[in-house]
């Protein structure tokens, strides 16, 4: 079963990290990701830009309305996600717990994936590195 681990955190807190703090968290997360990748259980991973870079298309009207900002204004924002291959919810929770130790604060939402289309997209598989 594929699970999406959706990462919610207060982005103003994450934005207040120094570069060193950010690097330290990313390094800790990379250790876990590398292990999952070696086990063949890691799907796409994405870290999203801050919600200030987001645009929302409200398609419940015609013509759709384009709005600046995220879909919902919430205390915690969707900042990224992992797709992991797990035999059970317990396994997925175990991974989420481990990721949470490396990156405390905020919440993970675990959602079983109903349809997964790992289509090749230009730029997919390339890492944006600093």
């Amino acid at each position: 079963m594929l699970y999406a681990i959706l990462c919610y955190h207060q982005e103003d807190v994450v934005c207040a990290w120094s570069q060193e703090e950010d690097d330290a968290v990313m390094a800790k997360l990379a250790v876990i990701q590398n292990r999952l990748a070696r086990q063949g259980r890691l799907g796409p991973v994405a870290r999203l830009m801050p919600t200030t870079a987001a645009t929302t298309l409200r398609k419940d009207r015609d013509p759709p309305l384009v709005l600046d900002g995220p879909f919902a204004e919430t205390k915690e924002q969707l900042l990224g996600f992992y797709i992991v291959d797990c035999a059970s919810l317990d396994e997925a929770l175990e991974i989420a717990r481990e990721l949470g130790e490396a990156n405390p604060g905020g919440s993970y939402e675990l959602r079983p994936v109903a349809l997964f289309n790992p289509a090749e997209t230009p730029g997919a598989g390339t890492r944006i590195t600093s």
Partner: protein
Amino acid sequence: MMDVDWIGAALSAARPQALAALTRAFRDLDAAEEALQEACLRALRTWPRNGPPRDAAAWLIMVGRNAAIDAVRRRRREAPLPDEDALSDRDDTEAVLAAELDESHYRDDILRLLFVCCHPELPAGQQVALALRIVSGLSVKEIARAFLTSETAMEQRITRAKRRVAAAAVPFEAPSAPERAERLAAVMATLYLVFNEGYAASGGEAHLRAPLCEEAIRLARLLLRLFPAEPEVMGLAALMLLQHARAAARLDADGAIVLLDDQDRGRWNRPMIAEGLALLDKAMRHRRPGPYQLQAAIAALHARAARPEDTDWTQIELLYGALERLQPSPVVTLNRAVAVSKTRGPQAALGLIEPLREKLAGYFYYHGLEGALLDRLGRRAEARVAFDRAIALAHSPAEAAHIRRHLDRLTAEAEASPDMPPAGAPSCGTA
């Protein structure tokens, strides 16, 4: 279990909203700062034990307000309020308080807090210091270090600024639309000043001042979250990100300035560039161009060029032309001249800057650019005079060293081949 760094990040993220709400509650900035400081001290004591509250700002506002009331009661020998240890996010108190924080007001409260620091009556240096002290919560010591001045001098500067702001008495009522736009413009200008305090640094001071750029970017993101549909705020954030992305390549190991053309573009911060480009993209959709968007668009053209020779100078010249029409200034014309020197050659650029000579007589970059253009035209003696003037006006040892290299080369070339114009002499552009 949280460690202290996390608490620090949570406290600084919550600070603008908490301080803005406490300032509204007490109608007094000093009282609000004192209450927030007390609340932060209590957070440092209780959060490691109890875990973080779900809404840090609401927690700080409530505890800060209680602490202030508590202090008054204690003076009156009355019963104290319940300990904040008993509070948690499962209590209704926070939810009630969060509802009390008038949602429609909190944007204007934070804007007001920012605007107080950007009051037009304050000189630029005081605006920047006050913004860093009040909104960012940096200590006087940290700010003094960034400004390369003593703690006492900085303390005095901030005290003076606060006194002026108190006298100016910015009203608490929700601002009208034109007032809000005016406040927003003043705040954007101050945030860019904060950014430039960090960006202009070089040499040994660079590592001390670079955090100012990061702080300015953080505040620009905050402003953008408050006003998500303002293209100029997007432009400002984009401009800062695109410029700061070059930070690692802008100075060499000795802190000397490396010009744009000579920078190792592999050291540019790609995620930062990507975010800047994304914000600019969003801003342009609004078709309401402004000075920050135009400057960001120019920075974006540099960021997009894989090599210096790939730079779209024609487009940059057009953008500077648009910026000149929107915000006429000899400095903008000077920048356009740099683009013109790339598209139409040094002679055309020289023709463009000659009328500016009087206005920019005391401007380092004018003489630096004039020297470089004359140099390219083989007019060495005149170039030398211009470089001499530039070096006298340099703000930092790094700027002086840069011009010194030009002068030394001119001397060497004059000795080696007195009649030959130099081939491909480096230009003097921005870094």
